[in-house]
């Protein structure tokens, strides 16, 4: 896919299309949410998206077998693939960062945010989402026999983790009776962190949710990342049973 740059467009197109849809549907009210949500969706799909290439390398090229029977250990292999595929996130992140610079004019060099702390929170949260999504992508990939199975799973994960939970829209839009369900998705916490940090002073762009506080958000994201790394280490089928 390194020889097919058009593939990059794909990773920009769907978060952008979704942003467009949300903004139009909300008559512009959710633009800020959408921009930040787009970044989360971009890193999440890039992370889980490694499963397609992992399955391709394993089943079609038998490359995973070459690596298994060598001194190279699984974390190195996965990190290598995840990093090499991070290029797919770059165009999406650039587009959304530009959009947010326009939307949240601020002080250079951070530009779109009001503080370095905000920038650190944004990148920290995105990093965690990318890390746990990659671990998830790897673990799932080792169970698949055929790359076509991943074509079903990737969009499903995206749907469950970004389209349904309050990533592109505030949690208050969800009816109170089922709001608890939103807290089942880790991306809810990431979105909360990012919105809190970036639009802290833009009152229009952030509504404090009923449950989460920044500390809780970090704890959940870190905990989940640790759990998924643990699962990857113990449950992924690096060697087949």
């Amino acid at each position, binding site marked *: 896919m390194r020889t097919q740059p058009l593939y990059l467009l794909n990773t920009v197109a769907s978060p952008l299309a979704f942003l467009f849809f949300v903004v139009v549907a909300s008559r512009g009210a959710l633009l800020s949410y959408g921009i930040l949500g787009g970044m989360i969706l971009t890193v999440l799909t890039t992370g889980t998206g490694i499963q397609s290439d992992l399955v391709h390398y394993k089943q*079609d090229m*038998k490359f995973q077998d*070459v690596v298994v*029977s*060598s001194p190279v250990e699984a974390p190195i292999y996965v990190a290598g693939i995840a990093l090499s595929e991070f290029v797919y996130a770059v165009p999406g992140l650039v587009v959304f960062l530009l959009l947010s610079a326009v939307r949240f004019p601020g002080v250079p060099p951070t530009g779109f945010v009001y503080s370095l702390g905000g920038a650190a929170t944004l990148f920290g949260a995105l990093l965690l989402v990318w890390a746990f999504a990659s671990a998830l992508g790897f673990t799932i990939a080792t169970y698949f026999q055929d790359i076509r199975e991943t074509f079903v799973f990737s969009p499903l994960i995206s749907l469950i983790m970004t389209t349904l939970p309050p990533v592109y829209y505030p949690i208050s839009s969800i009816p109170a009776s089922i709001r608890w369900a939103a807290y089942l998705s880790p991306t809810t916490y990431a979105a909360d962190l990012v919105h809190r940090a970036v639009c802290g002073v833009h009152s229009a762009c952030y509504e404090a949710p009923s449950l989460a506080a920044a500390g809780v958000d970090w704890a959940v994201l870190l905990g989940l990342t640790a759990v998924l790394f643990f699962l990857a280490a113990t449950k992924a089928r690096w060697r087949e*049973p």
Partner: protein
Amino acid sequence: MADAVSSRHLSKTYAYRGGSTVALEDVSFDIPAGETFGLIGRNGAGKTTFLRIAATQLLPTAGTVTVLGYDVAHEERQIRSRIAVVPQESRPLYFANTEELIVWYLRLRGMDRRESRRRANGVLEELGLEDVRRRLVSRLSGGQRRRVMAAMVLASDADLLFLDEPTTGLDPFARREVWGAIQRANRERRTVLLTTHYLDEAEALSSHLALLEGGHLVVSGTREALRARIQLPYRVTVDGTTGAEELSRYGTVSGFGDLRLVFAREREARELAQLALARGARLSLAPVSLEDVFLQLVGRPLDEGPEAESAEGAA
């Protein structure tokens, strides 16, 4: 340490939704260190399954396999640092050029840059790949890609090499080049486990062999010991127009398809050949090969295609 690989009562059953397949059952044999060992058998006999278990890609269901003195089930780390594998039907990653890919693989295994370059150059030359060293792997032919896989592994410093049908799809010249590289690895006292459907290849390269059939070990031993299993030195192949009963007067008869194979002593072989010629039958006469041993042991041709033809073409 005398044996590079030791298998004891090894069994493997693949379980999947809706059933299971027994791929290996109670398989025990040893692969001596520093030798090239040929693992042969028909499609589905269990060769790849054995190789993948020994190469720590797959867990056994029962029994033990010791590789370089370590147990495959629990000590895979110690094993992995000293082995390298060309999986069946594996293909090289396509976004690098040939030389980069080999160097990259060696670097990944922990070799330093200079040594990696030196070895990559050596193996490219040895396997006739100098012309494509700067070509993207995605622009190589199927046989060239297969050679790149072999090159990666042969250039490594692993003590034990697993080659699962490394020469499938290669032209006769390229095949000989891979043979040369395997023989060199062998001279360096590295152990090679080779699976192949080309019995001439197995015979030319392996000092020891094992034959699997339906997940069972049929026979294993040195090449000489296996050849000696057919004590009659010649094989006469005649077409089916001559009856088996008549043929049995000349030697041991076995047959497949339209052909009858008669294993005979020199005099009988000559008489039979004259008789068949006089009748205008098609025939060939050749010294027995490993292939004959396996045709006899398994009772059917190993595989349709090149091997079956070479049995006749040998004369």
